């Protein structure tokens, strides 16, 4: 109605930001999107994603039942409306989008106890009334790894989608929407101006609005800064799970996505089909507390992907032609759950923290965030509320579960300690880290400082580096 003003500014143009913008515009809001529209989108999680709609296959055997219930519940809600959401995007953008139904999860000897992981996934599916069929790995088309799989689990209600095509279609839908404007620039900051908010971009634009949705993923802490507004917003810490993925053309067919289960903080290997016989191979996961969006994929990340792909999925990957390399910063919180909805400031909302599930959760996240604007208070007690308290576990609590994954990571790619060697190293690392967790030396101070900053399993590998850098 009035030029130069917006009901809501969405800061960030990845899948969550665009989904939220689309939902708000459909509800009659005037939405201003600020974020890259053109250009390479380096570091954006959405365009580096597979992606699989992982309702159950993200469940891990070590997750407490409460967490599984909450996460699976939200993912099921997202999955239930997914086809409809894709249809709405297709109608608005003119670009057709298709789901490839089903996901194979395969178990092998590489993981500490893959059988337990598959059992946990299967149990979650059955508890929620969805099918999960154990099968012979020989049935999985495209699976021919170096380390034979001993079990396969078929999840027909999961699916995979081309995240890059999805993000591009949603971008077209938002760009063409009569109630949306889009500033093709990077968000630099948010500030208050009287009772309104002003979002600044690096091309000099400043947008005045009533509400702001922060959807810039792992870059949000930089956008918010540390002034008065950031203090009132009170956003929990947000880090990056940096991932690298490859797009290849392989001499074999993979009709349906194949993945290994998550093992600790590593997300396992996966092959996801793309149109025209291309294949997506993912994904590494390394925690970063200060993500560098300009940094391209490292050779160690690519080497890990190639090695693990051949070892666990298909040895003929070595004959594949490399088409593209992508890096994405997955936003992740200390408790691994998303941040959706109102913050400590009534007009600032978060749409982030979806870690490895952003593509699946996008439509559900958009609803929750939009509800927080059109019906304030409705989701105040939601498990993904940004105002929830964050846990601060002691390092000692997490050590027992994390050192195995740590040793695996140290041996990446392809390294193997002789029988008993890994166990001895784990025991030593447990003892050493326990000492550093409470000690008074320089290295101990570095470990404790790093842990206080990000008290989560993914930080454990970084503790070794932190200790080593202090003499």
């Amino acid at each position, binding site marked *: 109605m009035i030029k130069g003003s917006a009901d809501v500014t969405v800061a960030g143009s990845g899948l969550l930001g665009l989904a939220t913008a689309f939902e708000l515009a459909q509800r009659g809001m005037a939405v201003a999107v600020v974020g890259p529209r053109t250009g390479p989108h380096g570091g954006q999680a959405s365009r580096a994603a597979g992606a699989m709609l992982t309702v159950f296959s993200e469940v891990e055997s070590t997750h407490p039942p409460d967490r599984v219930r909450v996460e699976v519940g939200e993912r099921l809600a997202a999955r239930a409306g997914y086809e409809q959401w894709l249809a709405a995007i297709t109608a608005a953008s003119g670009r057709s989008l298709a789901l490839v139904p089903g996901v194979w999860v395969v178990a092998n000897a590489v993981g500490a106890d893959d059988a337990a992981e598959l059992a946990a996934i299967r149990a979650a599916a059955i508890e929620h009334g969805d099918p999960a069929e154990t099968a012979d790995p020989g049935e999985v088309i495209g699976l021919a790894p170096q380390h034979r799989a001993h079990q396969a689990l078929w999840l027909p209600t999961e699916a995979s989608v081309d995240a890059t095509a999805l993000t591009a279609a949603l971008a077209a839908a938002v760009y063409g929407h009569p109630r949306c404007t889009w500033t093709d620039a990077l968000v630099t900051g948010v500030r208050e101006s009287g009772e309104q908010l002003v979002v600044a971009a690096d091309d000099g634009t400043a947008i005045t609005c009533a509400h702001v949705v922060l959807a810039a993923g792992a870059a949000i802490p930089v956008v918010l800064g540390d002034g008065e507004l950031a203090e009132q917003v009170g956003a929990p810490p947000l880090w990056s799970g940096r991932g690298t993925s490859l797009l290849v053309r392989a001499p074999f067919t993979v009709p349906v996505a194949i993945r290994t289960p998550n093992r600790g903080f590593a997300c396992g290997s996966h092959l996801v089909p793309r149109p025209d016989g291309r294949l997506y191979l993912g994904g590494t996961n390394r925690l970063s507390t*200060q993500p560098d969006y300009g940094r391209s994929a490292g050779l160690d990340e690519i080497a890990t992907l190639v090695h693990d792909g051949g070892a666990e999925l298909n040895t003929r990957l070595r004959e594949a032609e490399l088409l593209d390399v992508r890096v994405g910063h997955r936003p992740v919180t200390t408790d691994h759950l998303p941040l959706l909805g109102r913050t400590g400031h009534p007009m600032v909302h978060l749409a982030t923290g979806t870690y490895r599930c952003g593509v699946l959760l996008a439509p559900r996240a958009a609803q929750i965030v939009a509800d927080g604007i059109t019906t304030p208070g409705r989701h105040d007690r939601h498990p993904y509320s940004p105002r929830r308290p964050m846990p601060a576990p002691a390092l000692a609590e997490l050590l027992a579960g994390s050192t195995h994954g740590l040793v695996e990571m140290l041996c990446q790619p392809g390294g193997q300690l002789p029988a008993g060697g890994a166990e001895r190293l784990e025991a030593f690392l447990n003892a050493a880290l326990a000492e550093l967790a409470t000690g008074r030396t*320089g290295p101990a*101070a570095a470990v404790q*400082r790093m842990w206080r900053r990000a008290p989560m399993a993914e930080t454990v590998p970084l503790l070794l580096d*932190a200790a080593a*850098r*202090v003499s």
Partner: protein
Amino acid sequence: MNPAAMTSTRQAGTSPTAIDRARLLIAELLDHGAGRDPAMIGADDTLSGLGLDSLDRVALAVAIERATGADLADTAVLRIQTVTDLAGHLAGGKA
């Protein structure tokens, strides 16, 4: 120490030894301590420009805390942009 390397402006109240300590600290972190000459580090160089990452900042924070005996918040660490800023912290001159 090469005097020519100390041509950049110095913040009032920051003694030369604090800058030297800052340079030495950074040199040890860079290349994992493998032979970077502290004299080649300019007082106005930025930490990120020199190639320091978040783990290096953790090490710097620990060094500052041990030098001053006082706690240093993460927000303060993030605000350390240049070698001179770091020297100021090491000298205990900054809040």
